[in-house]
């Protein structure tokens, strides 16, 4: 242990400045990594965060919004033991009031079995309410719409326009709060050339009874047979009023194009395709930290220069350079911890403001942030390592 620990030669004012500089740099790393990881997590949670929710999706599609899956498979999946409910859904980008939004076409009864939503205003959609829309609370606030208001929706993927009346406003505590819900047929107007396809099918399962692989094998049976175009038989889980309008029609599909996976894995795959991985984002944040490291080095060396006289005195009374460096290091390490904590507090305040009060959105969805303990530990390790290197390389002559 350092013999010089009893000597307090650092001026308090200078230490405060160093702690603030370290806090700012630490805050920059944390804001970068947590905001990027927050966006990453928001996308991953888009189709559902529960382990028990899996998705039947189109492996060939380049984005989660442009896939195409035969709708009748929602009926077939429901017949598998261990499946609670299946929700065929369409996802379509649109423009409303000059603002970009995403519209999700659902079968309300099936959708509500997978998603817990609370009604804030109005009433829940009926599957034959073709002229109605339910808005997530965040979207309703952003567009300044309330129950009873009319909206003109302009599609992005097809040449279509619609007029809707706002039927209800809901809260789900997920990214769906930034979306509009419409009956499935309406969602199909916005995406497809027919009523027989959907973007994906979300399925709620009992993981102890069935897995995504078993569901895939079950669906594979229908790809191998060559069904004629006939109405499918009624499935016990599908509401009969839906089937009486335009029933799902069985059709051939290419099994290799179909994927069945945990919902979060589906989104992760899409992001990974474009090189956006959790590791890449952390590496990017570390690079940002390294680019700002020279500031910390200069600040540490300035601190040493500011106390030059004290170090000279200690050298005269017999302290070696090694002892001085060790002593400075031991005195600054606790300050690094304080600086990291202060940086984390600044980051929390900033992200709290981003999430709650700013109108920042990515792909029309608000951002949800959460603290990752690994990132906090990495932050402390980086700051401590940087301060140590700066002190060890400082000139104590």
């Amino acid at each position, binding site marked *: 242990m350092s013999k010089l620990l009893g000597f307090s030669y650092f001026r308090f004012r200078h230490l405060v400045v160093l702690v603030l500089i370290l806090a700012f740099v630490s805050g920059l790393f944390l804001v970068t990594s947590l905001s990027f990881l927050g966006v990453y997590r928001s996308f991953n949670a888009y189709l559902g965060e529960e382990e028990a929710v899996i998705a039947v999706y189109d492996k060939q599609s380049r984005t989660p919004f442009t896939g195409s899956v035969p709708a009748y498979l929602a009926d077939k999946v429901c017949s598998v033991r261990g499946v609670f409910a299946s929700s065929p859904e369409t996802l379509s980008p649109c*423009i409303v009031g000059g603002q970009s939004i995403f519209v999700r076409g659902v079968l309300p009864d099936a959708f509500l079995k997978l998603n817990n939503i609370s009604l804030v205003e109005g009433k829940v959609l009926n599957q034959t309410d073709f002229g109605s829309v339910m808005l997530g609370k965040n979207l309703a606030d952003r567009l300044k719409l309330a129950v009873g208001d009319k909206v003109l929706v302009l599609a992005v993927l097809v*040449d279509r326009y*619609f*007029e809707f009346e706002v039927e209800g406003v809901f809260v789900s505590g997920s990214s769906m709060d930034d979306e509009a819900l419409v009956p499935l047929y309406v969602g199909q107007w916005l995406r497809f050339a027919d009523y027989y396809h959907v973007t994906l099918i979300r399925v709620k399962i009992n993981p102890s009874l069935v897995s995504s692989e078993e569901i895939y094998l079950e669906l594979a049976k229908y790809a191998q047979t060559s069904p004629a175009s006939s109405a499918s038989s009624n499935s016990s889980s599908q509401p009969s009023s839906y089937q009486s309008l335009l029933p799902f029609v069985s059709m051939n599909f290419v099994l290799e194009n179909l994927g069945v996976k945990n919902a979060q894995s589906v989104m992760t795959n899409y992001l990974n395709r474009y090189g956006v991985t959790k590791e890449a984002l952390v590496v990017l944040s570390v690079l940002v930290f390294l680019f700002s490291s020279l500031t910390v080095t200069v600040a540490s060396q300035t601190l040493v220069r500011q106390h030059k006289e004290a170090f000279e005195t200690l050298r005269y009374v017999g302290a070696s350079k090694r002892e001085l460096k060790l002593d400075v290091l031991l005195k600054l390490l606790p300050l690094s911890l304080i600086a990291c904590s202060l940086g984390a507090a600044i980051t929390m305040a900033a992200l709290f403001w981003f999430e709650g009060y700013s109108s920042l959105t990515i792909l029309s969805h608000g951002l949800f942030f959460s603290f990752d303990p690994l990132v906090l530990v990495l932050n402390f390790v980086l700051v401590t390592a940087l301060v140590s290197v700066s002190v060890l390389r400082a000139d104590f002559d």
Partner: protein
Amino acid sequence: MLSLTYKILLRKKSTTAAILALALLVAIISSMYSIVNFINSQTTAFGQLRNVGNQYLVLSKNCEGLSDSHLNRIPVNILKNCTEIKSAYIQQVLEGTLQTTTGKRPVFVRGVENLSAYLKAKPSYVNGTVAANPSEANLGVLLSKACHVNLQECVNVSVGSAVLDLKIVGFVRSQGQLDNEVLVSLETANMLASDGDVSFIEFSFKDGVNRQETLDGLSVLLPNDVEVVKVQQTAAFLQQANGEILNFLSVWSLTVYFVVAAASYVVSTRLTVESEYELVTLKAIGVKRRRVFGLFFSYTVVLALVGAFLGLAFGVVGTQVSSTVLKWFWQGVLVEPFLEPVQVGQILILSIVFSAVGCVYPAFKSTQRSL
């Protein structure tokens, strides 16, 4: 004397480290912006690859929906006289009630001039025939199923106090909103509305026409209370998506600018510590405090300016070098980062402003040194 002192300060060993510290911080911002600019340019180019969508609506400005829009005959005549337009369908949309044997249901009633040509152009499939006279109507396939209406059945359609009995002569399937509407001739809709109003006009251009030029010409001719809206909004959506990413980046870059201010504070403080001899000499020869402040302040601002320029260069060149290296490993990956002139100006100005703010206190402290 002051210019000599300035030269001495600039020649100090710590000047290079100071410039580099600021340059690296600015490089973070410029590299992020240059990569995002490339991504945005690709999505914009994708959205403009071809003229996506050829349907346009003429509506009254600031209307909430189609049924709220009211046009007089002026836009109708303007569009009919425009030779670049392939087809224009005048329509009236009303909110009404459909009364059938199974009950009542609120519906949209759409009256179209030349309904037969409209349905053919949509395109749509008609099971039966297209309504040809004022006592006939077509029903969207979904609406017909929901209300259990059969072909040739008579239904009651009311709009306000106006009520009409209409015979359903065909079911329409268009994979659009028509599948949920009662479709009648414009004459029938006018009878229900008890006026000769038009809600909106749906039109499309001929092939090979310069659409933007024609739209610009139309906007001059059309009344001020009317607007032309493109139906398929691919470019607008992509533009908004790009804008969201840029907004996020702008807010994030504020944290970098705060670190720039902190770096500037450190640079000025270090200069004050290392230039004790020069400061004392200046005081001894009677240089005013204001001039000493100006000297240290301007030194830091000059360093910030040089650092910002260097940082911009590092950022853009660094990302371009990285993308070249990526191309060696991943054939077919072509990333061409760039910065917009506006962004260059913005980064320069913000870097200098934040650096100036950061160095004010140390520069002020340097004037307080006593002999």
